């Protein structure tokens, strides 16, 4: 498709920018690296918008169905005659949507960082890493090949690692970056093995072919994968579940969510981009990309649904107790991604049944805006207050009016208050859940209420509450910091009105979706109640929250300590892996395996000492040995007649 070939530039420009800034950003171009990066991203975002337009309105639709357009395809690494890693650019509704989200949010973050990161020592490097991330994320979403996804999956992982650890001289940042990478790596292991299983079963790595082969009822590949089983579970389910583990790791799903709150050690714009809007939804994207397979295999889809539901609920509870602004947002991110996951999990494949899928993607879309908005607001706040702790804030309403409005928009949106964007996507998810699984629906509604509560808890504590007397180094921030807030706030408000079901559905055929207002009344009322409750508790400083906390006792403490997940992980890694596997391995190597070699040498020396007596220096002894030698030989070979 030559008229779409400019898409390649969307990928190449950030890459080139990374190379340029990576090599020169430290000294040569340090000053203007921000400007370079931002202008490159501006071009990228423009191209992406163009792609959206061209795909959805010009080229994409054929016979009423959005079809897959392979813009570029080449063989990158061949494994065997039919299995190879291809690199390419494939456009379909969700990849185009993701292109748009990633490039726009990335642009916003680039702009915001101009102000936020100003004066940083490694300003150029920061932009280089940002470009690397943008490149990897964009390449991930347009993948044609499941291994291509894996490749860029790892690359976004490493960008995330580098950016979380951007303040490398802070031990906590180093630890967080390490944790983030290792936890996701662990999940990627599942992804990798899943790929191996799927590719072996399907005999291909190409996503499109893979899906066709494994969803055609008569195909030998599908037969092979459903009949061969391990531990009573079919190979297909294993493969899909393992792939989902990869996605769960990246999307910080329960129980692999522990890395995300810590990842907030990175610069706040990074949290907005990577850990809220784009990278963390990669897991959702992965499941969506392979959705035909998942919808075909009910058991793995159920896993997706329940993991999503749990991941929506637990972090929401935790978020109600946390005091670090970014951590609260991080937990809310997990919770929202949980929504998207179970949205997918409850979805069917075709027609109206695909509502969950559509809703999930819709939520991904809206979430990208309002969550990055919230994070950037948080960034602005932190920039001002120089602290992450909510206790240090309060009464900021007057000091930063724009941020205040933007944050409020974000909160309303995430709380699902109409007409903000979050309302539409969330309602659709809930209605999809209601149609297929009442339990999950219940969880969803409860979580939605909690969300409204903790978000407004945050909002009131930051912007209302008591006003602190503080000496401020600077005002609300430069234009570069305010502009993205405004843009995102507007997007977060309006994104809900996009007729999403016309564009993104599992079978790529547009459907008519409508928000059932009657159905929505119940969740919205609950959310509003939660907001009012939060307002009562936190609008002014009072003793009620503390009282409630003590009355909840153990439960509060449990939630406050994040259900002790960190401790469990620490126990497993430090105590079990290090002490029970690593240390013994090192010990065995040093003392047993190596010891054997040394023992061999020592024995040789020992024997040589033992037998030195033969060389006694006494002439007559020598004569005796001489004679004994003859007798011995004679005895062996003459007496016993050793015949040949």
């Amino acid at each position, binding site marked *: 498709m030559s008229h779409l070939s400019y898409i390649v530039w969307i990928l190449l420009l950030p890459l080139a920018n990374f190379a340029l800034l990576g090599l020169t950003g430290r000294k040569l171009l340090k000053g203007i690296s921000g400007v370079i990066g931002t202008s490159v991203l501006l071009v990228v975002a423009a191209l992406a918008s163009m792609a959206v337009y061209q795909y959805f309105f010009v080229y994409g639709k054929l016979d009423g169905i959005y079809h897959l357009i392979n813009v570029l395809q080449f063989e990158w*690494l061949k494994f065997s005659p039919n299995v190879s890693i291809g690199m390419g650019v494939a456009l379909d509704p969700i990849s185009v949507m993701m292109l748009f989200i990633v490039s726009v949010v990335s642009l916003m973050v680039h702009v915001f960082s101009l102000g936020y990161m100003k004066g940083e020592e490694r300003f150029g490097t920061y932009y280089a890493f940002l470009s690397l991330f943008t490149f990897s994320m964009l390449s991930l979403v347009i993948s044609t090949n499941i291994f291509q996804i894996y490749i860029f999956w790892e690359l976004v992982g490493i960008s995330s690692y580098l950016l979380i650890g951007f303040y490398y001289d802070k031990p906590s940042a180093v630890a967080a970056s390490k944790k983030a990478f290792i936890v996701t790596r662990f999940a990627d292991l599942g992804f990798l093995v899943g790929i191996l299983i799927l590719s072996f079963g399907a005999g291909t790595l190409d996503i499109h072919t893979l899906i066709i082969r494994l969803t055609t009822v008569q195909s030998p590949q599908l037969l092979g994968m459903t009949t061969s089983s391990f531990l009573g579970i079919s190979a297909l389910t294993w493969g899909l579940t393992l792939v989902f583990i990869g996605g769960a790791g990246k999307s910080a799903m329960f129980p692999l969510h522990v890395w995300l709150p810590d990842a907030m050690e990175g610069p706040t714009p990074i949290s907005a981009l990577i850990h809220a809007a784009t990278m963390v939804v990669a897991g959702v994207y992965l499941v969506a990309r392979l959705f035909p397979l998942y919808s075909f295999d009910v058991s793995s889809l159920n896993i997706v649904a329940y993991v999503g539901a749990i991941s929506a609920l637990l972090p929401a509870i935790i978020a109600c107790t946390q005091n670090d602004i970014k951590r609260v947002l991080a937990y809310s991110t997990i919770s929202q991604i949980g929504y998207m996951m179970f949205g997918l999990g409850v979805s069917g494949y075709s027609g109206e049944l695909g509502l969950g899928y559509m809703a999930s993607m819709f939520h991904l879309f809206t979430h990208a805006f309002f969550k990055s908005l919230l994070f950037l607001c948080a960034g602005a706040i932190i920039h001002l207050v120089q602290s992450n702790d909510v206790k240090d804030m309060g009464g900021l309403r007057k000091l930063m009016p724009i941020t205040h409005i933007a944050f409020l928009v974000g909160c309303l949106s995430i709380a699902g208050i109409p007409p903000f964007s979050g309302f539409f996507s969330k309602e659709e998810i809930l209605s999809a859940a209601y149609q297929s699984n009442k339990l999950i629906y219940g969880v969803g509604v409860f979580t939605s209420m909690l969300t409204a509560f903790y978000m407004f808890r945050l909002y009131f504590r930051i912007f209302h509450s008591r006003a602190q007397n503080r000496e401020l180094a600077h005002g609300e921030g430069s234009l570069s910091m305010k502009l993205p807030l405004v843009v995102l706030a507007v997007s977060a408000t309006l994104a809900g009105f996009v007729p999403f079901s016309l564009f993104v559905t599992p079978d790529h055929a547009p459907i008519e979706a409508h928000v059932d207002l009657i159905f929505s009344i119940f969740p919205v009322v609950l959310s509003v109640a939660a907001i009012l409750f939060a307002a009562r508790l936190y609008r002014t400083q009072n003793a009620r929250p503390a009282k409630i906390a003590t009355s909840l006792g153990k439960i509060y403490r449990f939630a406050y300590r994040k259900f002790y997940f960190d401790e469990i992980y620490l126990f497993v890694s430090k105590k079990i892996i290090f002490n029970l596997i690593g240390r013994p391995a090192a010990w065995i190597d040093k003392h047993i395996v190596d010891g054997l070699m040394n023992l061999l040498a020592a024995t040789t020396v020992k024997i040589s000492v033992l037998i030195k007596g033969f060389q006694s220096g006494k002439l007559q002894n020598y004569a005796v040995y001489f004679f004994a030698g003859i007798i011995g030989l004679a005895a062996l070979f003459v007496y016993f007649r050793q015949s040949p």
Partner: protein
Amino acid sequence: MNLSLLIFIPLLTAFVILLCRGEKQVRAAALAGGVAQMLAGFILLVAFWQERETGNTTQMLFQYNHQWFSPLQINYHVGVDGISVAMILLTSFVVLAGILVSWKLEKMSKEFFFLLIFLSIGAYGYFISLDLFTLFFFLEIAVIPKFLLIGIWGSGKKQYSAMKLALMLMGGSAMVFVGLLGLYFNTNAAGGLHSFDLTQIAQMHIPLRVQKLFFPFVFGGFGVFGALFPFHTWVPDGHSSAPTAASMFLAGISMKLGGYGCLRVATYLMPDAAHAYAPVIIVLATIAIIYGAFATMMQTDLKYINAYSSVSHCGFVLLGIAMLTQTSINGAVMQMVSHGLMTALFFAAIGMIYDRMHTRVAAQLGGLLKIMPFISTVFVLAGLCSLGLPGLSGFVAEATVFMGAWQNPDTLYRVATILSCASIVVTAVYILRAVGQAIMGPLKKTDQGNVGDASWNEKFAAVILLAGILAIGVAPFWLYKLISPAAEVVIQHVTNAVIKN
């Protein structure tokens, strides 16, 4: 192209170095020799491509066969296929980088460079040999210089390590020796002349009994070089005591000698036995991978970390070979090349850090990124390559090995593959731990006087190796195209043998 050039260039260089007076001349000669080697490597690559382009599909190209000891049918027979070309290129990269890294060496620099160059003769000769005698000859050539390099210029318990390395490697080669003799005397069992010629033996049918008897010798012997569990213990001590260039050579090339031998001699010439013993080797390789990785996790010295991780990574080579699928063998060769470059780079970076900070214990370092950004970046990149980051060579190789390994549907093979895959997590743990401790974090040692970033020669060395890593990592298809036909020959051989039985 005359392959013997690959031997004569370093030989000439070594000779010139002996005649040089003064450090400057020695360095200049060594550098010129190193560059010449690299040029020769590239010329070989181009010539090889051209020959293949013209449709020459002979297994071995540029063959030259000269009678050496004719009564014993020992010939100087050389020739290359894609795998050899890849290994030769790797060698030239590592040697040149090694020369550059040791540029500032003051203690007996003449001898140092002489030995280093001499070592490369062994590697080149080994990779081009098509005669088992010649191969063995060059294999042993490449041992003793290492002993001297470690013992004289090393650090720590250098004498112990040097001796251990020499004895274990020579022990390995002694096993190979026994195996080769056994093979030789069973060629042409029906009568006629015995042969050491690799291409000829491949055409013959060696009795299964003989194969089963001698395969363990040959594979085990080469396995010692390739860090096969439990013969890997020379690796940690040897690598960590060696001077930087020697570590680079040791991990970058020496360990590859083993993998190459396992593939070229053991598997190729004794396909039935390779098939029969595959489960054993797979188990050992998996142990090496997992256990090496866990043992790495407990190390504190950066060199030990890299050395143990080499054990783990070289396990992939053996695993790939033992899996006996074309993809896995491709992967094994790629892993050899990739690990060679990566580990050389890693050692180079560690050496540079050690030169400046005088310690290699990760916990005592810290915040190096602040004072030596270039070296730190190189270190991080090497680490990332080690943990298999896409875009760098390690990923390509490991992915290929996994992919190939998975094609064996047997449960044992599957379990081994999954366990080996699991090592990527452990790798991430120890690499990031090392990076976190040494490169990141607050600056701990501030009292160092002349701490500066890399000098031109060090930068040049790192860039050479990085170029190789990126060339494979970003565009692996050329490497695939190079080695895949050669791997196919091997695997065809094995398949035929298995079918015949």
